[in-house]
Every structure is written in C-alpha cells, then in structure tokens.
C-alpha cells in the first residue's frame, strides 16, 4: 500500500502535492543531462521512464496494468464520445444510436446552466457572472495594488449587487423567485454564499476556540465538533424535513435559503479548523511582539495574526472551497435542481430517456474544469508560499 501511495503522483502528474511535483521535476533537470541532441533526448526520456515508471518490479507491474486498463477503456470511450457521436438536429432522431448523443446537451444547455430562469432575464445571470470574474481576478492575482479593497468588494459589495440582479423586484428588474433558479448557476451561487459565510463564521469560531474565555471556547468547540460529526446529507435532510415541522404554521423559509444555511454552517466548522491551523502556524513571537507594542487583542488578531494565518491557510481554504462546490450537488436530495439535478431531471423527459450518460459526462466535465482550475490555483499559491518561506529562512 505504501508503494502504491508513493507511486501515484509520479504516474499521474496531475495529482496535487507541491512536494511530489518538485521531486518529479528533479530527474528532468536539464543541467544534469548530456547535450547530444536527439540521442540525449532519447536517453533523457528512457532515463525518466526508468526512474518513474519502471523503477522496480512493483512499479513495472503497476505501469503495465494501468497501460492495459487505459488501452481497454480509452479507445472505446473515444469511439463513443467522438467518433460515433452526433450533435446535429434538435431531437433524439438526429442521433445514430451507436455513440454519444450530444444533441441532448445542446438542446438542454440553457436548463443545465440557468435552470428555469426566465429566458428574457438571462442577461442578469450573465452580468452577475462577469462581475464575479472581474472581482475575483484581482483578488487572486499575485501583484495587485489594494488587493484588500478588491476583496472587500467581492465579499461585501458583490453579494448585494448580485442579490439585486438575480432576485430583482427593485430598480425595474422583474422579481425572479428562487424556485426558478437551477443548474450550474445554483451551484455557483450556493458555493459563493456558503464560502463567504463560512469564512466569516469559521474565522470567528477559530478565534473562539483559541480564546481564553472558557464559555466562548466551549461553545466554539461544541459547535465545531457537532457539525463535523454529522454527515452533510443528514444536515440537508434536517433542514428540508425537520425544520418546517418546528416552525409555526404559515411560516416557511425558502428551501434554497435553508439549503444554503445548512451548507454554510457545515462548511464553517471545517473552515474554523483550517483557519485555526493557519493561526497555529504563525510563530508565537509575532503575537508577543504585537502585544509588547501595546496593541489590543482585537488589533493583534486583525492586523498581525489573521493576515498571516490566512496566507498560510489559503491552500487549505481553496481545498475546502473545492469540496464545498462538489457538495452542493447533494441538494438534489431535497428537490433543488442544481446542475446534476437538472441533468437527471432532463433525462426523465420521454423524448430523451436513455441519454443520461451524456448528461453525466457533461456534468463531470463541468465539475472537473471548475474544480481543477481551483486546485491548480491552490497549488500555485502553495508553491509560492513554500518559496517565500524558504527565502525567509
């Protein structure tokens, strides 16, 4: 088992781990190679192969079995997904039946992305998405002036703007109830709100857990451990099934709001632990030095400890975000149609029964692109942090 775990990053370079990535690049270091043109290249390749894929008997067996497995599956998948696939037309009859029927995705694309958001109002979702991208880019870029301002805009200004845009009902925008929302838009909305909410709540909880006041500490520990001990699905069911029974008659909370609150509370428990990890990694001297300058507790936390803690915790925060994004698909269980729910629902249309495979492959691709780009960014941040740390040390 240990061998397996060690080999995995080498066999598939996409696995995220800065440590293994750097070890992988070492054999390819150009300075260690002879400069004999193509012969050098060949020996370089065979060298790399021997080291990484055929280093030992176990490695060779693993490599060969992976190759055989890929050889058996990949050509058939390509046959299905590309060679014999069809995308023309607007109905099932346009599909040959031998390969994938991407027509299904083409016809249903709007539902998969926007749910039932009224067709005439789709620009509002698009504007909200573009605004989000505009605000995120300066926040995640490395050398940006006034990053804090952009971050504030993203965390405080943007939700207000997006709220007005998406829900409407004011400024001449028609009201769009949340039960018309759906598809990928819903995954993004839920992830964004739950992430921002859990970040704030998680930070407070992390500070609470480190607090010297026993009641605050106890409550924080209790909250974190309670939410971490319960599966997310159970929490979602509680919010969908139990909560309405406890509310007085006639009072009902939007089910999307309930799902988002459940996601936020659940994620904030994990976020608290992530932030606490970041706080612990800040050298004690920082805190002591800050206090000796006469700063108050709150100032020490806000200006000295938390900024450093967030920096250290950023890769783990991104990791939590990726998990959260994937977890949002669980809301299908309570009848909210996110991307995955929309795909499943669309496959129940008698005109499209039997094309659920195409839908799942599409959903997989979308989730892969989203999650991979997030973790790719996370890896870059991690590498940067490691570099900074070694430069400082």
């Amino acid at each position, binding site marked *: 088992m240990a061998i397996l775990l060690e080999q995995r990053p080498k066999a598939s370079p996409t696995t995220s781990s800065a440590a293994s990535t750097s070890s992988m690049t070492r054999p390819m270091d150009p300075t260690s190679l002879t400069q004999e043109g193509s012969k050098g290249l060949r020996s370089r390749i065979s060298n790399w192969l021997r080291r990484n894929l055929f280093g030992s008997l176990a490695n060779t067996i693993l490599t060969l079995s992976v190759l055989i497995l890929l050889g058996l599956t990949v050509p058939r998948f390509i046959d299905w997904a590309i060679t014999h696939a069809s995308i023309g037309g607007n109905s099932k009859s346009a599909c040959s039946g031998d390969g994938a029927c991407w027509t299904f995705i083409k016809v249903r694309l709007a539902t998969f992305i926007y749910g039932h958001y009224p067709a005439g109002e789709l620009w509002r979702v698009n504007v909200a998405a573009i605004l989000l991208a505009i605000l995120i880019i300066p926040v995640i870029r490395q050398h940006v002036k006034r990053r804090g301002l952009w971050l504030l805009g993203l965390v405080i200004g943007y939700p207000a703007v997006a709220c007005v845009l998406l829900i409407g009902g004011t400024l001449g925008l028609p009201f769009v*109830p949340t039960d018309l929302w759906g598809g990928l838009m819903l995954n993004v909305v839920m992830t964004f709100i739950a992430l921002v909410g859990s970040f704030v709540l998680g930070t407070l909880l992390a500070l609470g857990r480190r607090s010297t006041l026993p009641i605050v500490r106890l409550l924080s520990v209790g909250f974190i451990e309670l939410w971490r001990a319960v599966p997310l699905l159970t929490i979602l069911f509680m919010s969908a099934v139990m909560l*309405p029974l406890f509310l007085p008659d*006639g009072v009902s909370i939007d089910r999307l709001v309930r799902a988002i609150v459940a996601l936020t509370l659940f994620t904030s428990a994990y976020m608290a632990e992530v932030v606490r990890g970041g706080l612990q990694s800040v050298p004690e001297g920082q805190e002591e030095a800050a206090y000796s300058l006469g700063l108050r507790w709150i100032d020490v936390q806000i200006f000295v400890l938390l900024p450093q803690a967030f920096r250290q915790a950023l890769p783990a925060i991104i990791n939590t975000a990726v998990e959260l994004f994937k977890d949002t698909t669980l809301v299908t269980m309570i*009848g909210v149609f996110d991307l995955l729910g929309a795909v499943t629902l669309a*496959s129940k249309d*008698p005109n499209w029964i039997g094309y*659920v495979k195409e839908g799942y492959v599409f959903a997989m691709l979308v989730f892969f692109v989203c999650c991979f780009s997030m973790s790719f960014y996370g890896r870059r941040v991690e590498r940067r942090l490691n570099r900074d740390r070694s430069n400082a040390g």
Partner: protein
Amino acid sequence: MMTRNIVKYAALVSIVAGLTGSVTASQAASESATLDAVKARGELICGVDTGMPGFAFQDSSGEWKGLDVSYCRAIAAAVLGDPQKVKFIGTTSKVRFTVLQSREIDVLVRDSEYTLARNSQLRLMEPAVNFYTGQTFMARKSLGVSHVKELDGATICVLTGTTLETNIADYNRAMKIKINTLLFDKPEEAFAAADAQRCDGYTDDSGSVAAARSTMKVPEDWVILPETISSQAQGAFTRYDDDQWTTIVKWTHGAMLKAEALGITKANVDELKSTSTDPQVKKFLGVEGELGGALGLNNDFAYQIVKGVGNYAEVYDEYFGSKGLQLPRGLNELYTKGGLQYVASWY
C-alpha cells in the same frame, strides 16, 4: 355618573359588536385552511416527483409535464381558474410526505402508493387514484408471447433489492412455470442487457416498463404484456385535517373522469358549454345547478379543469398513451371499458 355609565355601555356594545363582526367574517371564509391559503396566495404549491417519465418531468423549454403535473394544473384550474398558477416543488421519496405534513406544499401528486400505514400513521389522505399500476412485463416481440404465463422458460432482466424478484417467484409457484431472472443494480444496465439480447424481457412497474421500452434501440420490437402480477394504486395525497380540501382534490379527479365519460374534451368544451342541451353536461359545466359552490369553488370549476388540462383520456394519451410512452390503458380504463377508473355520479 350617568354619562360615565353610558360611555361604559357603549364601549361594551362596540366590543361585542366587533367580536361578532370578526366571527361572521371568519365564517365567511371557507372551513379549509388549505383552500384559503391557496386563494390568498393566488398559487397552488404542488409536490411532484423530481423526475419520472410519464408522471413528472421537464420538457426542453423547462416546462413541467406529465400525468401528475397535469393533476396539479387541474387543481389550480378548479380553485383559481388558471392551470398555470402552480408552483412545482420537486420532492424525493425521502422527503415527500414530510413536506406535505409540514404544510410546505398543498397537495402531493407524486406516483406514490396508497397504503394503510400512510393513511393511518402518516395521517394523510389519498382521495384520488390517478394511476393504477403493477408489475408489468415487456417481452421481445419475436417470442410471440401475449400473456405473462407464456413466458415459461424465458429469462427476464430484473432490478435487485425490490419486491419484483419475489413477485416473480410467487407467480412461478402459483402458475407452476419457470420464469428465469437476470439481476441488475441499475436500470440503465438492465436496459442495455435487454437490448443486447442477454434476456428476453424486462419487468418493473407499468410506467417504468413503458419508459424502458422507449429507450430500446427499436421500441417496436418489444411488446408490453397486458397483465400485471402485483398491483398498486397511486395518486394524490392531502392532509388528514382538511376534509374540504381533500374533497376538492377528489372531485378534480372525478371531473376529469366524468368529462371523459361525457365526451367533453379540451377542444369541444367551449362549444358544449354554450350549445349543449344535455342536463348532465349543463350541470357538469356549471351552467345549471350549484354543485361547485358547495365545494367552496366557483360553479364552473369542472369547465375550468377540462378547459385547462383536458379530460382523463386526453391527459393519459399525452403522457402514457399514443402520444407518450405507448402504455396500453389497461387498469386505467373507465370501469365501463373494463378498467378500474370509476365515474361517479354528479348529483
């Protein structure tokens, strides 16, 4: 002293008058909390399946369609006069009854079976059975089979973890025949196996079998056998504590069947309303009599239902019949044609 007494008396009278006033006002509203809520909201909140071919699904434009969905629209038409005034809530099998109990939805129409436990323990009513179903078989046409007992020796693809298998075993024992089974975890795998000739047929609830047939490479090569070897009655659920609302749901279904029996369709309902001299039709469409008012609805509620969604045959045809999944009506025929759908008398 005198004046003070008069003031006191006047105050007392006005309080009493106010109380009586409010009592009469609350009597003017209906006895049904659900009906009042729906009318005040101007919208029916209807719980449906999160996706089930024939019963509830969304078409390419994202509009809800299906037999159960049509029932939601019919209730909205009866109560509010507009079949579009429905908010659909997708409910999974785990949450369906709780969202009804907690009043998050007004009515649940979600291919759910009527059982004693649901009636008594969950305290829910099922006033209308809109779909009789049961375990049905689909067989390859080339076998030349027309009855289930002729499947002796054949191999049928079955999903595991359900009562489907035990039903076949019981049937085998009762009929002294041998129907073999090939087990699968997922419907898609079972469909593919049937298409690949690994078995001679497929079995499930009638609606699911019809859906399965439509996924076959050549649906015409498969025939759905008329009998069922188990039975289920599926329909609309309401809460125990609201008799008037339950009655409205019951007679919405009644009106759709009655319209079929009277030959009233979505297309001819307007014409019949103004020209028909048949007293049955006139009473049904609310031209004569006060039957709707007694339900707490407008007198023309049945007209609104037929105008909005059509009669039972039209709805069945669209989703399960010739325009839909090609499932023979079987048990869902009117009782006059050998089915179980009874057309109740109107007065």
